[in-house]
């Protein structure tokens, strides 16, 4: 609810919630909230990992270690199933993507007005706590993946092999110009689709949370108490549960597609 914001229209409310805490102008804008929260979640992962490995037991793993091992084995299984050959970087990277994206997505499930409200007490006008609803985050990750795709393509196929892939794929040697365009689009679509899929899903999810939050905003007190209030709670809960599925699925998809793309970079022929 936008109670602390004073008098605001629905549009202003939504726009307010979709604005990052930022410094700078134009391209040289740094979204401080995005950076801060994603780094904080990353540090959380690192410290959790340190804690687990410090107290790890070889024989009888305890509760939390079991949980971590379960995730690790799940990721390892995915990598084993989809990634051809051997590369020591892929599995930890996949784990990082899965857990980090999931944690960032999870921020979406925190009541949307809670953190902006707390931030407003400290004089911060804007706060957007879901880093994956910032295209910069998702694109940053997909660009790293893209760089790795190019790197491994060059490493495994060689410069000649990579160029050959552009020239003679997918239609053979008589359609070289078409092939170049097609392959370029295909390769560029990889990072773009990765970034946009995650961003789109999470952005839309947050927007739905905002709309549900707006539901009881403009009505009278008794109507709110009897109809819109309960309805809002039910809708919010339903979307929350559904969204829990979505954030897990999106983290999983990002991870699997990364593995698949890098796997494709490691194979000689498509």
């Amino acid at each position, binding site marked *: 609810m936008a109670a602390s914001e004073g008098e605001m229209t629905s549009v202003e409310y939504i726009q307010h919630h979709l604005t*990052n805490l930022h410094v700078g102008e134009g391209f040289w804008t740094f979204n401080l909230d995005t950076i801060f929260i994603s780094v904080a979640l990353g540090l959380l992962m690192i410290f959790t*990992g340190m804690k687990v490995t410090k107290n790890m037991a070889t024989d009888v793993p305890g509760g939390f270690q079991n949980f971590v091992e379960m995730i690790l084995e799940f990721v390892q299984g995915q990598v084993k199933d989809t990634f051809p050959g051997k590369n020591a970087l892929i599995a930890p*990277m996949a784990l990082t993507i899965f857990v980090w994206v999931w944690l960032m997505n999870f921020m979406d499930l925190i009541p949307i007005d809670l953190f902006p409200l707390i931030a407003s007490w400290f004089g911060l006008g804007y706060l957007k706590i879901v880093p994956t609803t910032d295209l910069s985050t998702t694109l940053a990750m997909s660009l790293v993946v893209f760089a790795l795709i190019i790197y491994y393509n060059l490493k495994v196929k060689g410069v000649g092999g990579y160029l050959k892939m552009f020239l003679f794929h997918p239609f053979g040697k008589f359609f070289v110009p078409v092939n170049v365009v097609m392959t370029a689009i295909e390769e560029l679509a990889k990072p773009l689709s990765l970034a946009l899929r995650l961003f789109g899903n999470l952005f839309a999810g947050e927007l739905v949370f905002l709309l549900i939050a707006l539901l009881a905003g403009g009505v009278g007190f008794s109507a709110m108490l009897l109809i819109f209030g309960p309805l809002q709670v039910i809708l919010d809960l339903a979307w929350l549960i559904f969204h829990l599925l979505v954030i897990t699925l999106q983290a999983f998809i990002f991870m699997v597609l990364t593995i698949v793309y890098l796997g494709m970079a490691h194979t000689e022929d498509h």
Partner: protein
Amino acid sequence: MNITATLIPQMIAFILLIWFINKVMWGPLSEMMEARQKRIADGLAAAEKGKHEQEMAEKRAKEVLHDAKKQSAEIIAQAQKRSSEIVEESKENARAEGERIVNAAQAEIEREVAQAKEQLRSQLASVAVAGAEKILKKEIDANTHSNMLNELAAKI
């Protein structure tokens, strides 16, 4: 929702995070899990080996037991045979001894009979001579007639 320079710190953060996760969590944890897998595999193999050995030992024990039974049966059979042999032998011995005793007794009897006959014979001669002496007192010469009677006695 524009693409901004936030991209740059986010990329750096992502790369560093991958590096840290690999270093801090993935490496040690997966190493440990591999070690555990190996230990479990080793344990299972050892258990399998132990089971196999136990089976072998059981088999051997059975064999030993079987042999022992067979041997004992043989020994018992031998002992029985030997005992019956001993019984037979002693029976044989007893029979021979008995026969010997009987034979000796018979020989003794015969000898005694012969002795008695001899005695009787010698006495008979003197009795007959005495009888004849009493009957024919006066006219018979004792010397001439005793020779004749002795010849008579020898015929008995």
